[in-house]
């Protein structure tokens, strides 16, 4: 099981992700982004099947660590253009690309409380801890 938590940042929002493996970090990043956008954990929302939409994406990478930021910025793009909220997902890590199938909550624009400009590379690195991985990401808002 992974987790996300927030750390203080003067102007923007900092989130710490922890997970057993890399795919888990991606999964936690979806949940953290949902919280940043709505101020709620996805478990607090009743997700009706008819309000869900799935989007597949393939993100090529040169550097696997950076792919997490690229993935988040892909989600930010979808939120900004389609006004839907990422709430769940399945991530497969391939040799040169990430394949994702992300579930979005649609028709719930009113839940979006915050505009996210981007996930940044500020002091970004993925580190090992105990039996898992952790990272800190700063979002520009």
């Amino acid at each position, binding site marked *: 099981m992974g987790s996300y938590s927030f750390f203080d940042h*003067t102007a923007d929002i900092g989130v710490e992700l922890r997970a057993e493996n890399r795919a888990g970090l991606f999964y936690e990043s979806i949940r953290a982004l949902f919280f940043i956008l709505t101020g709620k954990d996805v478990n607090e929302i009743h997700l009706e099947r008819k309000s869900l939409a799935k989007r597949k994406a393939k993100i090529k990478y*040169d550097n696997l660590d950076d792919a997490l930021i690229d993935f988040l910025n892909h989600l930010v793009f979808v939120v900004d253009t389609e006004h839907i909220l990422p709430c769940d997902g399945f991530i497969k890590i391939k040799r040169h690309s990430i394949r994702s199938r992300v579930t979005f909550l649609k028709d719930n624009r009113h839940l979006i409380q915050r*505009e996210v400009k981007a996930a940044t590379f500020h*002091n970004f690195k993925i580190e090992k801890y105990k039996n898992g991985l952790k990272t800190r990401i700063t979002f520009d808002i």
Partner: protein
Amino acid sequence: MVKLKKIGKSLYELPRENGMKVKGIAFIDEQMAVNSETNEALRQLKNVACLPGVKGFVVAMPDIHYGYGFPIGGVAATDVTDGVISPGGVGYDINCGVRAIKTNLLKKDLANRMQEILIEIFKTVPAGVGLKGSFVLSKKDERKVIENGAVWAVSSGFGDELDISHCENNGRLEGADYADVSDRAKERGKEQLGTLGAGNHFIEICYVSDVFQKDACKAYGLKKGQVLILFHTGSRGFGYQICDDYLKKMRNKRLFELPDPQLSSVYIGDHLGAGYISAMKAAANYAWANRQIITHLIRESFQSLFHTSYRNLGMNVLYDVSHNIARFEQHLVDSKELMVCVHRKGATRAFPEGSPDIPQDYKNVGQPVLIPGDMGRSSYILKGEPDSMLKSFGTTCHGAGRVLSRKKAVKMAQGRSIETELSKKGILVLSKSTRTLKEEMPDAYKNVTQIVDIVEENGLASKVVKLKPLGVIKG
């Protein structure tokens, strides 16, 4: 703590160390110099001083605070021949800036009308998260916005020629190439033109509470009691996407080792550097077009409420400043005139009288510098002073600067009604989000008076008028 050497009143030096190519200069007071938040931001400034080709010194303004990569309130000039361009030194909200619209109304003319004015503007100017502009950009217009900025907006009926002449760079940067902007950026910007956005973006109705320089007031057309509209927004999703696109490309190139990956850069002469500069100009033009359309919408609101034309209401643009941008400028560096790329992130140009880059109307005075404070205290209009050219690459502060994180601000606001507190001071506020109001409450910012006093003491800019808020719209 970062090593600081006091060299003057509210002036410190960050000596060169650990890979810094130049020293740092910080316009901060004694209280800020020992503050841990400021210290973290100065650490970021030291990282900026490690960029290849950085010239002279890097600068911290008194509103400096911790950002990502560059600190907010930071300035760095890089050599055009062997220096870099850094998207992190501009930020995601390219050409985020402030515009001031004058009126010939006095504070007393708005007595008991503030609520209806705010509601009308709130209805007319899309503000908040995920709102569309009043029109969708066609492919043809998209190209024109990218290439011509505010000039396109005015030629499309959203204002006057005078508006353009009262914008930095006349509301348009030459050299923006449509081909250097990704389809994603175009998609993100398609429905957002003419929108305010959220977070710290705002529209404020305010009045001149104090006059400091009569001559400058005459040149700027300002007087005590006069009502102005100040607003703050930028290039919206269009600019955010451009920054993201090019940072990713520069990060993949990994030309040099840098202390923070968000500082990824390429040489200005590099093909990718040229692509970013062109796309950054496109975003700057988008932002000017955005502020021009919002000007038009605000004027429409006033016309409908006061049943007369905006010209009769004297709603002329005083000035429009950019505080997140990189521009090529001639500066005196180590006693030599040099063309440099000045990165200003959360910092405003403050060109003095006689500068060729300021409007004819202000040439004998110096450019107006618009410094918004927080929504409960005050804002200032300053004028650029000659020392800014020697001490800060023609730059001054851009606002009050955050002092509390959003998390701390929300915690501090628990159990309080920010709207009621402001209303007791005679300031009405409208916002889509109560969370935004808490995050943006006055206590979250430094006192802007303390900030402008420091830039004035150091001769970067001087106070012309103080403005006090009457009504604020937050996105």
